[in-house]
């Protein structure tokens, strides 16, 4: 039909843009990972698996595992806090919920660097928390909380918490209150109701929140750089270094490739969980 070709004209410029400046560069990364680093930092066009092997070299793989650990811990903490917040919002009177949600998400809208910087202000050696401790009567030299793994985790949780609140609130708000009431009638206590009914039905929201926080955290290089201090390395910083300081692009590309593979795997897993859950919901309605 003639009406089928016309919209393509409208779509073409944007599609070309995405193709040329997203697809091609990303494919380029994949290709680069299989070339050798030149003697003077350039690229030598011989195919090799060295770079990929190097990623799994204990020296670098340790960083990978540590990044995954920090990302996992941050995601877990964000999920606990975010779920609690979403649950509490959903328990408030309906007319207040959208406003509460709006204010829970508002910080998410401001600049990432600024939000991270706010924690530098709080945590540094002359920062508010140290001052608060002095004022409360602590004497002597207090350990700086800045430039530590804990600071990085706090920063990641803080930055991505609103996202988890959103993803958990969606299924919670849709939850039919009748369901938990029905379970109560059957003699379950409040806690059992939550564990056996509410929680399972809202797992997809938690999964979405977890995966996104994990994915955004594991590749993060701003937060480790600012809150972790110079010596602290996560995989994002390692990639950054290969491209901007060490000048070993093939290795940087190999690192990114593994990173992308982990992210894609998780995102796909999350999609599967979401699909299963919606299937289960359909079965219940039917």
């Amino acid at each position, binding site marked *: 039909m003639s009406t089928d070709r016309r919209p393509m004209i409208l779509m073409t410029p944007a599609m070309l843009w995405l193709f040329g400046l997203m697809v091609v560069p990303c494919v380029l990364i994949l290709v*680069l990972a299989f070339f050798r680093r030149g003697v003077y930092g350039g690229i030598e066009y011989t195919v090799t698996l060295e770079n990929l092997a190097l990623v799994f070299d204990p020296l670098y793989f340790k960083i990978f595992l540590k990044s995954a650990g920090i990302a996992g811990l941050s995601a877990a903490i964000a999920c606990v806090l975010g779920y609690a917040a979403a649950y509490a919002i959903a328990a408030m009177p309906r007319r207040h919920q959208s406003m509460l949600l709006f204010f829970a998400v508002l910080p998410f809208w401001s600049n990432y660097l600024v939000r991270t910087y706010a924690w530098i202000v709080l945590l540094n050696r002359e920062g508010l928390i140290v001052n608060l401790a002095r004022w409360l009567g602590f004497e002597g030299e207090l350990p700086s909380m800045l430039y530590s793994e804990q600071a990085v985790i706090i920063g990641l949780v803080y930055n991505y918490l609103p996202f988890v609140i959103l993803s958990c609130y969606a299924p919670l708000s849709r939850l039919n209150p009748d369901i938990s009431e029905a379970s109560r009638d059957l003699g379950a206590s409040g806690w059992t109701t939550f564990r056996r009914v509410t929680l399972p039905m809202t797992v997809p929201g938690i999964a979405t929140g977890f995966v996104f926080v994990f994915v955004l955290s594991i590749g993060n290089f701003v937060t480790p750089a600012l809150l972790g201090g110079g010596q602290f390395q996560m995989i994002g910083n390692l990639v950054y270094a290969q491209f901007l300081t060490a000048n070993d692009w093939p290795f940087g590309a190999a690192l990114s490739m593994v990173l992308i593979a982990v992210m894609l795997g998780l995102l796909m897993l999350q999609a599967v969980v979401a699909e299963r859950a919606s299937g289960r919901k359909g079965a219940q309605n039917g």
Partner: protein
Amino acid sequence: MADRNTFRLMLIILGVIFAFLYIPISVLVGLSFNEGGLPTAWTGFSFKWYGALLENEDILKAAGNTLIVAIFSTLLSTLLGSLLAIGVEIRRRNGKWLETLIFAPMIIPDIVLAIALLSFFSLIGVKMGLHTIIVSHVVFNLAFVCAVVRARLKNFDWSIVEASADLGASTFTTLKRVIIPVLMPAIVAGALLAFTLSVDEFIIAFFTAGAGRASITLPMQIFAMIRFGVTPEINALATLVMAVSVIALALSQRLNKGGLPGQ
């Protein structure tokens, strides 16, 4: 009464979480107005640090660069993203690949896109600068604009498009006089979103700006400054940047009652 206790518990949880979310930024905003500039003591309210920003050449230059990047990438991405949205919704039956291509820029981690673009520009020998930041920002911005406009198109009455053709308008005239005007609130909302995203974006700009200070943007300037610690000027600058994004996004939200993507 169990219910009342549960409700109290919920209020406490909300209190704690909101404190966690708002105390850090509130302290930052508060300190930016502290005459003395130090976190240790409140010495009086003052705009002094904001004034100081205006005398900082580096910051002004970076702000100027950011404005250039944001304006051009917003214009380009609004044009491309809106047309894309209209085309996609007219076609309706879109393959999975197409949907993925349109969705990908919104979820692809910044660092991945940043290094991919850096390698790409270097390999094809493009000299990097503000122009490379602009075209790179368009990649994700056009996807966000497209998402906002598409949300509006979901409940668009397509019979008005047929009515326009029936009354004698060409496809182009219909686009110009019917489709785009009706979508205008969503397009403006998308543009505002794109503008804020571009103003705030750090990682991609950082990688595609090229060497030297010539094309440094505000987030890059902030990053450089905060690595050396806390100063009253940064507090003021951070407060300003935060205010701009929140206001622009709230405005965008207002215009586009369907909500922002991801919400």
